[in-house]
């Protein structure tokens, strides 16, 4: 059963300098209890998708078309009051840069219990008890509830952020780059925690990151975005052996693997896409090694080429055969 179904979502930003199609006709589905990893470089629209699901798209952006079905109910036309009942209680989010997401003037415990008090009919004492429980759940001693955010380390702040996101027992968790700005060892510990909580609480998760290795270790499915479009989606187990889209393949090759013999890496030629002036046709065409004249004018659509393997590329058959 699918918990979340995004259909033909278009989120555009109407900036004074021109129209930016940050998310341009994206569709995907998330099954209950599964984790989907969304990968891509900065500015490809992955965070905008998260904000669209939460209905938090900042000005001057807005959802211009499409549906976001949560358990069959479309979230796009809902008003603020209706959304408030869904946010946090049903869908919650761990924001990028957790360090900056807490208010420095209030204690960690108070900030987490505030989230509980706002969304659930419980008294203060009960909220505090649950806060302490949540902190223990993410591996923080509950006496730390009395600390201010600036008294905690980066990793602990990130753990508290996760505790806060889990405070109202959501069924869908969106984690937007939960480990950027953290040190290597700390970020590995945070990813372990997320993995453990996911199985323990039976969470459905959307994990947004630029690091494909993190997705390989924590998710069931991988979706790759480029220039506001979904270019490939499949099971994590397949993507590393069977990836078809040239951008996915290039992304995988761009990470040095520490556990195999040293190999030369291949960069992706050219520069990241300027969303203000995207090329006609396939947006990856100017950087693609398999580019054909057709790709320059004709925009490829996402097609299912094998069971649960979707690709948006004109050349997929040729690539598939020569692989």
């Amino acid at each position, binding site marked *: 059963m699918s918990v979340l179904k995004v259909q033909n979502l278009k989120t555009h930003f109407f900036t004074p300098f021109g129209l930016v199609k940050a998310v341009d006709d994206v569709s995907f589905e998330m099954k209950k209890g599964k984790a989907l990893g969304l990968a891509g470089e900065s500015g490809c629209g992955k965070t905008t998708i998260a904000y669209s699901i939460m209905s938090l798209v900042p000005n001057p952006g807005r959802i211009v078309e499409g549906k976001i079905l949560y358990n069959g109910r479309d979230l796009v036309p809902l008003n603020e009051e209706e959304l408030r009942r869904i946010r946090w209680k049903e869908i919650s989010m761990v924001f990028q840069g957790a360090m900056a997401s807490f208010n420095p003037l209030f204690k960690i415990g108070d900030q987490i219990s505030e989230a509980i008090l706002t969304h659930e009919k419980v008294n203060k004492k009960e909220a505090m008890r649950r806060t302490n429980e949540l902190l223990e759940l993410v591996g923080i001693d509950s006496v730390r509830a009395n600390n201010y955010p600036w008294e905690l380390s980066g990793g602990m702040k990130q753990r508290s952020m996760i505790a806060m996101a889990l405070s109202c027992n959501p069924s869908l968790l969106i984690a937007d780059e939960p480990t950027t700005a953290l040190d290597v060892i700390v970020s590995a510990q945070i990813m372990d925690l997320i993995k453990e909580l996911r199985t323990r609480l039976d969470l459905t998760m959307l994990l947004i990151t630029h*690091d494909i290795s993190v997705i390989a270790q924590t998710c069931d499915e991988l979706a790759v975005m480029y220039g506001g479009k979904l270019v490939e989606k499949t099971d994590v187990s397949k993507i590393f052996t069977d990836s078809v889209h040239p951008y996915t393949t290039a992304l995988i090759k761009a990470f040095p693997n*520490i556990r195999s013999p040293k190999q030369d890496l291949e960069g992706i030629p050219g520069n*990241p896409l300027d969303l203000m002036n995207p090329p006609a046709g396939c947006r990856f065409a100017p950087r693609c090694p398999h580019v054909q004249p057709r790709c320059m004018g004709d925009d490829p659509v996402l097609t299912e080429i094998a069971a649960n393997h979707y690709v948006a590329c004109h050349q997929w058959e040729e690539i598939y055969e020569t692989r």
Partner: protein
Amino acid sequence: MEPIIVAKNLTKLYDLRSSFLESFFSKEERYLRAVDNISFNIMPGETFGLVGESGCGKTTTGRLVINTIRPTSGQVIFEGRDLSTVRERDELKKLALKMQMIFQDPYEYLSPWLNIKDTLAEPLRIHNMLDEEKIEAKVREVMETVGLTPQNMILPKYSYGLSGGQRQRVMIARALMLNPSFIVADEPVSMLDVSIRVGVLNLLRELKRKFNLTNLFITHDIAISRYMCDRIAVMYLGKIVEMGPAEYIINDPQHPYTQALVAAVPAPDPAVKTQEIPIKGRIPTSAGKLPPGCRFSPRCPYGESCKTEEPGLVEYEEGRFVMCFRPLKK
């Protein structure tokens, strides 16, 4: 072969006493031990990597080596010359011809007031190297080397008109303008997008081969350090805890901290399960008092006798150094 850089017992302390009065009256000395008595050599043509988490002192070490800050004690010897004895402005200027630095943040270190042509020509003008015509030829030559094309489009642009990858290439080009023999690269790709990161790393590797450049490569990413470096030194709280050839550090780490750093790298393949990270806790701030004995002992899964005594960095096999009692006992 003589090493190009010799760092001997380098130490850099920062005074933490907040005011002059406090430093006058307070008896207690409080220092941040950014770099704590470390020694290493860098051979000509070698890429030497410094790896560690934030606050371990790797950037401070890079700055000490390139003489932009002065050590509290210890020496840096560059091509046989002790940098701490260099006082004259002219001599410092001459040294700048041979040592250059590439910074982490290409968004911050390029002047918004200079176009790319002037940015690249500036070092040559400061050193009165060439006349204007030749300067332009040299600028174009270096741009070619670092892959900044199309030249006529880029030359009149300002840094804000370039992409991150192009800016980092401008930074590299600027460092190359004076034909240095030694370059310190401080996290040169951490601000760049994944898709262009490899391009910049490959450029640095190619330059090293082409010009026989010597590099000090600073990064927090042990996977990248393996890709770039011949030898790696792992730093923890101001100390080098392990040093040796890159492949040994990655495939056969001896210090528990190095083992944890290697284990923390996620495998880009779901079939390979990442090992559990053997250490717990987090880095204590080096501002406070260091733990007694080995500074890693509070987080060490083995820690035995090290609670009272700190091990030294010992060469236990040719070219392989470790600051831990355990591998030595075997």
